[in-house]
């Protein structure tokens, strides 16, 4: 269907990032490729020298990758203040992996006007960092153009997700996730052209409405690398009709103003998008989830998070109350960046699917 080469992007063009609150438009406007770090090796060999083992497994994989020199040659790396573990990860990388240019992007927890103002100041610092590594001043017009590209990308993704909910048997998780991964590792201009064509093709090959499909599952939470997890759900006989994961359903919920001051617009749109568990308006996330459950005709919700993630694990009891009130069955599963014990996950999913019609 499509084939994205992974080695045609030179390392020196890559600015690695981890979290969807990274304002990618600035990286793009500075002439780099925002490149989401998705460590591929399941093995952790060196990280124990740097981080304890009861800390986010994604960050542990990142540090392991960096320790093995896996980020050599990158133009830079952005770490966000997503959580306490990220702060310590930044400290460790700064101290021990000195060859890498790293920017720490703070994120306010609030999203009111003063927070937006503080965040736009942070983005000013980000601009300085990017200018430092590119050696070239960043023009406002370049940023506005990037914003345009990203707005388009997000609109296309929104359409894609609606299509998936309609035709979940056609738009299975594996190809969708591959597209989403490619989307955050390749130029948006290229991905936009691809998505337009792809969405057009899907609409042409419409099969009968997928709302008849049984066992429609919505996945919520913080799962950095959902490939295995989603395919287990499908193997067990369910279909994924939507999600609110960091680089899934929550990635494209905002549009940025294209006129006026770009940094302020970016600060505004990123800070007020459907929030991550770290933000004070977490309950807006529950509203978005409840809304999506209705829109996508989901039969049940699987709540999953990486182990040791306070921001997401602690939200489940509150979300569960809302789900219970609406009579929506839910399953709670902790996972790791590389999920182990596939059989155990499968059993729980199968048990859950038997509960939902």
């Amino acid at each position, binding site marked *: 269907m499509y084939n994205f080469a992974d080695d045609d992007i030179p390392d020196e063009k890559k600015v690695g990032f981890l979290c969807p609150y990274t304002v990618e438009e600035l990286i793009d406007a500075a002439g780099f490729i925002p490149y989401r770090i998705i460590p591929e090796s399941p093995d952790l060999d060196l990280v124990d*020298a*740097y*981080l*304890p083992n*009861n*800390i986010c497994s994604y960050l542990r994989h990142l540090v392991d990758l960096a320790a093995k020199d896996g980020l050599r040659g990158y133009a830079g790396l952005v770490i966000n*203040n997503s*959580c*306490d*573990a990220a*702060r*310590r*990860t*930044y*400290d*460790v990388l700064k*101290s021990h992996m000195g060859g890498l240019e790293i920017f*720490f992007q*703070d994120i*306010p*927890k*609030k999203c009111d006007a*003063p*927070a937006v*103002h*503080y965040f736009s*100041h*942070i983005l000013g610092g980000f601009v300085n960092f990017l200018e430092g590594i590119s050696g070239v001043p960043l023009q406002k017009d370049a940023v506005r153009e990037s914003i345009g590209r990203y707005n388009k990308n997000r609109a296309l993704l929104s359409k894609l997700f609606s299509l998936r909910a309609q035709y979940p048997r056609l738009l299975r998780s594996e190809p969708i996730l591959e597209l989403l991964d490619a989307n955050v590792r390749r130029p948006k201009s290229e991905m936009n052209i691809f998505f337009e064509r792809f969405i057009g093709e899907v609409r042409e090959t419409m099969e009968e409405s997928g709302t008849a499909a049984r066992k429609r599952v919505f996945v919520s939470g913080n799962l950095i690398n959902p490939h295995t997890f989603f395919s287990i759900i499908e193997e067990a006989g369910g279909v994924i009709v939507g999600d609110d994961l960091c680089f899934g359903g929550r990635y494209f919920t905002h549009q940025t103003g294209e006129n006026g001051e770009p940094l302020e617009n970016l600060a505004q749109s990123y800070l007020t998008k459907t929030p991550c568990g*770290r933000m*004070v308006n*977490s309950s807006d996330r529950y509203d978005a989830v409840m809304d999506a459950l209705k829109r996508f005709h989901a039969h049940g919700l699987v709540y999953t998070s990486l*182990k*040791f993630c*306070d*921001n997401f*694990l*602690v*939200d*489940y*009891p*509150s979300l*569960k109350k809302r789900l219970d009130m609406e009579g929506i069955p839910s399953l*709670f599963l*902790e996972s790791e960046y590389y999920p182990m014990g596939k059989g155990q996950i499968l059993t729980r999913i199968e048990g859950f699917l038997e509960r939902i019609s």
Partner: protein
Amino acid sequence: MSLQSRVKRMLFDEPDPKKIMRGIGFILLKTALTPAGKFDLRAAKRFSLILYNHARRFFKYPQKAVFTSLFAPVELVHAFGLCPFSLEMLAGIAASMDLAPELLAGTEKEWLSTDFCSFHRAYIEIARIGLLPAPVFVLATAHTCDGTYKSFSEVSSLMSRPLIFLDTPYHSDRVAVDYLTEQLKNAAEQIEKVTKTTLDREKLERAFFFSNRARSALLEINEIRQNERPLLFGEDSLPFLTIWGSLLGHREGAALFERYRDELKRRSEEGWSQIKGKKRVLWLHLKPFFPNRLLRYIEQELGAVIVAEEINSVYWDELDIRSPWESLALKIMRNYWVGGIEKRLDNIRRTIESHHIDGVIHFSHWGCRQSNGGVRLIRDTVTEYGIPFLNLDGDCVDERSYSEAQYLTRLEGFMELLER
């Protein structure tokens, strides 16, 4: 049934803040009647009286009670004549009363992850089962840790009381300081609305005055402890946090630390040497609050005396009434849990030098990622001085996984490193 079990049953079967208040009154009376000479330090009697009295006030006058997070600007609360109490310290006190296992078991039924810090879990449960008076409001800052906002938000919702939350920025440049300063000003306005009163500037000035006095006294105490012979055990100074966490800005907070300062000064001048320590230790982070002999073992049996603890560092400058909000903002932002790890490491370096430290122990409380994530860098820093570092894994509140034997070997091994 022992008194202990009777108290437990009372607390869990018929939770009633009024009963707790009466119970505290009883303990207060008992403490007042105990001669000061029975305590290791005379000031320790005062410590207990002040702590229990403050706790009793908190339960007796719920219309003045405020729940706060550790390192929140309690001076502001005192300025309104209200009574702040740190929920984390409350959890610690509950643990010291052996209540934690039941509290934590309760949270597990509610789907709360066991990897979540047990301090948070414990006080959420304390609030949920009705052991706390409904406060006027709840005050928290972001920088204690990720879990703080979640937990205080939950408590605020359980008690149906407003949450005033201060988003501590990572950075400390002008814009960041302004961001927090503005929030503090707004917080004062919010409190005025909630209490339907106006902030009396004189009261704020008094709160600053007492906070600054307590600060000076704490600074002097830390300096006196540079003394070549230990003048008190770390086990007796680690709990200082329970007082200054809630009573900075209150007359009693200042008075208490001045008492300690005076007594320690006297000991130093008289050449007091009843603590036969062999080695001088810096203790990082908190300690297990549930009943245990860990510190006694380290300091008294092994002879590794804690002459400094990170948690009692004075990291802030005097508060200035001429720019109150900025003053309080800077106080918050200088805390070494804010931002990157450099402040923490610098503090460790300074203390190793000033207190002639022989070895450093870090207590890795389960789930405390902002602290434990830094162990490698702390180890690197301590190693710069060629002295040994020991990381102890454990839990400050949950005693169910505590195994004394496992600690003993590590501690003895550490002692062997110190003695080489």
